[in-house]
């Protein structure tokens, strides 16, 4: 009996699905190989710091100065405006998690000018931050858990598109910072998409010239906070210094007064 039109369509659909599966497997495998190559890892290695321009942009993004065009919903626009009305120098204390030595969490973590570095392990890319926080980005092809336990950094899954690491993060705690030091936190709906690349091109920021730079294009999705997905780009250069993690070690501001106890001599 000749196959019906419906069965032919089903056959083609199955074949197409298999091809897509194979292509996805190829991408993951090739991407993994590329990511694990010595040259690639060497390019991504080093201590990264935010350029001055990006630092200022992210500082202004939410609440201070002439805010960049962030498509906030009316509810969050009101919160932003009330905060922005207080001059910076007269605020009793800066909002956000860092003054308390608590991790900003995602997506605020990457919007603070914190030094960071990449550490590679099989099926996973890790990012270590200067404040002692770290992110795990799974690149082993796994799926998101159905109900990820909310955490400050969220649950991140990445895949390679050529030399770009594409990362999606969900399951973010509602205690994480949406921006750098702002009164706006993430919600249970927050989703973050990052496209991370490193270019072997010179870039100068202030007095430092780097042989390479790292760029992160971030898209924030959250129907409660944003009217539409909000995308911004950040640039980082490599600096020839190492860093020690930890915040509480020398956090001398308790919120109302500085601890001026001199440190011991070395």
């Amino acid at each position: 009996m000749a196959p019906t039109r419906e069965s032919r369509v089903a056959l083609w659909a199955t074949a197409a699905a298999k091809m897509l599966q194979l292509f996805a497997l190829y991408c993951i495998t090739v991407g993994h190989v590329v990511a694990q190559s010595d040259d690639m890892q060497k390019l991504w290695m080093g201590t990264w710091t935010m350029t001055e321009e990006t630092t200022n942009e992210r500082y202004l993004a939410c609440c201070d100065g002439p805010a960049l065009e962030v498509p906030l919903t009316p509810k969050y626009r009101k919160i932003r405006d009330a905060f922005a009305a207080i001059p910076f120098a007269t605020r009793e204390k800066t909002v956000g998690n860092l003054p308390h030595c608590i991790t900003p969490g995602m997506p605020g973590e990457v919007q603070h000018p914190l030094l960071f570095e990449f550490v590679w392990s099989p099926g996973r890319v890790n990012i270590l931050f200067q404040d002692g926080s770290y992110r795990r980005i799974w690149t082993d092809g796994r799926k998101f858990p159905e109900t990820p336990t909310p955490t400050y950094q969220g649950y991140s899954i990445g895949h390679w598109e050529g030399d770009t690491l594409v990362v999606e993060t969900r399951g973010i705690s509602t205690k994480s910072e949406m921006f750098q030091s702002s009164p706006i936190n993430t919600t249970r709906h927050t989703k973050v998409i990052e496209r991370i690349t490193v270019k072997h091109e010179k870039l100068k920021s202030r007095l430092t010239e780097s042989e390479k730079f790292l760029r992160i294009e971030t898209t924030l999705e959250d129907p409660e906070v944003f009217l539409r997905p909000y995308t911004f780009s950040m640039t980082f250069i490599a600096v020839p210094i190492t860093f020690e993690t930890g915040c509480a070690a020398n956090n001398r501001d308790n919120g109302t007064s500085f601890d001026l106890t001199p440190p011991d001599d070395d």
Partner: protein
Amino acid sequence: MRAATLVISIALWPVMASLPAYAHHSFGQFDDKTCTVIEGTVKKWEFSYPHTWLWVIAKDAKGAEAVWGFEGADPATLALYGWSQEFIKKGDKVTVAFNPLRDGRKGGSMRKVVLPNGKTVSAQGDEAVFAKCQVPSAHGAK
């Protein structure tokens, strides 16, 4: 070392120029309308997170020697300007321009530092941070 403390009144800098290099905390505890300059000897330089701290042994206006604590920008920002843990050493003679603490204690927000080689460097990143707080040339600034 001869103590030299100079208080310079300065005009309020426009709001747009009041962009801190990094806002780990409020700068409300510092008097950003006053710029104080002091000379001393480095006790310790902490290239630490969340903020850097420079500790200087200096004499106050009455000639009493004490340790002063000055907060600089975060290490990530200062790294762009060539600062590191090795940037300043114990025993270095330095001149510091700073916005003093409002409570009168010996410390403040470090703005500019004149290094032993006479070079003046910003301790907050951008020159336009907060008010202009400069070290006069009489204190060795180049």
